[in-house]
């Protein structure tokens, strides 16, 4: 074992570091405390136990993070205590010639300052504002100062999308992209882009921790992922949160000034966000495709549209009805083996309308689309989900408008608050001069 740099910042089980002789360079602690408390994932509630053939005792194990390799009472966690690897020369040189919008510039300055001060900052940027670019200056400064930087995202596809963009602007510090089964998982880099899950394998590793899509499932729901973020960052590190639609408690903290934040209420192309309409459509669980939805599709001979359904089963029932209108209409859901192909076909224009569950609520953009939500009162459509869904429309500068309809069988608070949030962003954008007349 010659290259120890891999171990820097990581905390691994005895099984993950099998061939080490220089154990004196590693600090060790048990995988579980007596409570029990899993030191890797922070779990304190989901355990089981069995007579253990390895230690000869009845051994407790963590069921929460078992997919990453089992942590038992007799597991030891090791972390590297040797020196940190040096950054490559020119690590912080930024290869980017883009221009920040006025809103982005303010955010970028505040991110830079938080990173210099080792403090916490939240960027609340509407979909299409260009939140990634806001990080560049701050990351460049951090890398120049020899700091180690991590961007954590909730899902592997976000990591895969971010990695090449950062590779391009920081070619001297090729980022390590970490997700389950990723080819980079044995690589050391001062710039790491990781799923929140893979952070479980780090311990006080990062001087700058950036958490993307804080509002996204499962981050808000899973205490153990919050634990992962806290464990992976150094005690005196800076913490940057990115969100397009923060949860209600964060919104009020931001508004009252208790949470340090920068808002970017306008898109990069300086046109207002399209505002959704609400249309009552009767019992859609019975009609599956309500008449008002059919009319919406036929009325303008929709060229490109996303239609969201709350559940796979109703969506599957709806598909043949839509195929009667146009056989090229398709549907997609999380476990769909053709998910990537269908999204690509939609992008090429081969699929005019795509029915989808909430999996396409964020991340993907198609220029010039309209958006409908059928059964928008369903509880899967939270305020933030609806804001994200509305954020799919009007993304390109050539086609900044878009028609968005919430088809419902009874208005919900989430629908009303989502529309209110979008309107407030437009008002604020107007007031700050971030929108073109």
């Amino acid at each position, binding site marked *: 074992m010659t290259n120890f740099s891999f171990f820097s910042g990581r905390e691994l089980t005895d099984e993950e570091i099998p061939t080490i002789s220089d154990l004196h360079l590693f600090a060790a602690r048990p995988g579980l405390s007596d409570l029990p408390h899993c030191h890797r994932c922070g779990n304190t509630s989901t355990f*089981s*136990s*069995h*007579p*253990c*053939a*390895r230690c000869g005792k009845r*051994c407790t*194990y963590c*069921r929460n993070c*078992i*997919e990453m*390799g*089992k942590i*038992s009472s007799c597991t030891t966690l090791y972390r590297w205590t040797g020196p940190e690897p040096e950054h490559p020369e020119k690590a912080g040189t930024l290869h980017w010639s883009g221009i920040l919008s006025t809103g982005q510039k303010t955010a970028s300055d505040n991110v830079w300052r938080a990173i210099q001060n080792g403090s916490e900052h939240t960027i609340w940027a509407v979909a299409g504002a260009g939140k990634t670019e806001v990080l560049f200056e701050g990351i460049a400064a951090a890398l120049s100062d020899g700091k180690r930087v991590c961007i954590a995202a909730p899902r592997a596809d976000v990591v895969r999308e971010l990695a090449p963009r950062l590779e391009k602007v920081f070619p001297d510090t090729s980022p390590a992209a970490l997700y389950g089964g990723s080819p980079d998982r044995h690589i050391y880099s001062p710039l790491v882009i990781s799923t929140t899950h893979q952070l479980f394998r780090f311990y006080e590793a990062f001087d700058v921790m950036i958490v993307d899509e804080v509002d996204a499932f499962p981050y808000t729901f899973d205490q153990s992922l919050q634990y992962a973020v806290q464990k992976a960052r150094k005690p005196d590190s800076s913490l940057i949160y990115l969100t397009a639609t923060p949860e209600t408690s964060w919104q009020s903290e931001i508004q009252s000034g208790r949470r340090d934040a920068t808002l970017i209420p306008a898109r990069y192309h300086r046109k207002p966000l399209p505002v959704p309409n609400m249309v009552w459509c009767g019992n859609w669980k019975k009609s599956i495709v309500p008449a008002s939805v059919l009319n919406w599709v036929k009325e303008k001979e929709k060229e490109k549209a996303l239609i969201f359904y709350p559940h796979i089963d109703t969506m599957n029932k709806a598909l043949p009805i839509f195929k009667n209108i146009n056989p090229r209409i398709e549907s997609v859901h999380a476990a769909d083996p053709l998910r990537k192909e269908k999204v690509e076909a939609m992008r090429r224009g081969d699929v005019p309308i795509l029915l989808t569950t909430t999996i396409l609520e964020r991340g993907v953009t198609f220029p010039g689309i309209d958006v409908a939500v059928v059964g928008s009162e369903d509880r899967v459509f939270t305020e933030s989900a609806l804001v994200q869904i509305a954020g799919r429309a009007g993304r390109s500068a050539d086609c900044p408008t878009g028609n968005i309809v919430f088809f419902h069988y009874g208005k919900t608070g989430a629908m009303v608050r989502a529309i209110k949030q979008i309107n407030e962003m437009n008002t604020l954008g107007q007031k700050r001069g971030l929108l073109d007349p």
Partner: protein
Amino acid sequence: MSQCLLCENDTAVQSWRGFFGAKAPVLCNICLNQFEKIDGPTCEVCSRPMDQKGICPDCAAWEKNIFISNQSLYHYNEAMKALIARFKYRGDYALAEMFAEDVRAMAKKAACDLVCAVPLPPSRLAERRFNQSEALIEMAGLPHTPLLARHESDKQSKKSRAERIEAEQTFYPIGNAAGKSILVIDDIYTTGATIRLVAEALGQAGAVSVKSITIARSGS
């Protein structure tokens, strides 16, 4: 409130049943529905699903042995494959609970004198921390009699591949089963080769007959 062993869903029983002391199921309905129980006609020896009851050609071809029959609970579909991988290789011992009730009932019906696990070679056991076959027996609340042990299988063996698959006997008796009927419990039945080697070793311990219960029946 009780939680599904596989997802976060609540599995609490309907209130009136709970009132009469019904136990909450181990899995929620969504997870449970992914697994297919074997019902309908099967091979009387190996539990393979067939068009009509009888003995399948594979079983007809086996030499005579004190092994009588195997009974399997589930088809080895994708969901079961993932579940058994999590149980056996990831080491999620708790999952054995979802089979406990069925295994107990089938063991009662099999009416054997002793219950015995399929042993693992020592190095494999240390690596996995528990033997999945013993876990199934323990969770079902059955008394386990260790009658067998297992040598490390010799991977560098000079024997041909076919010889190894056919004949490598790694099981050996460590207990006395004179005149007894034995029930063996394991996770998967595939070709029947393993259980017949187990039966042979149990025969050396004096057993007169062997039956098996397996969680899943793989193969066509």
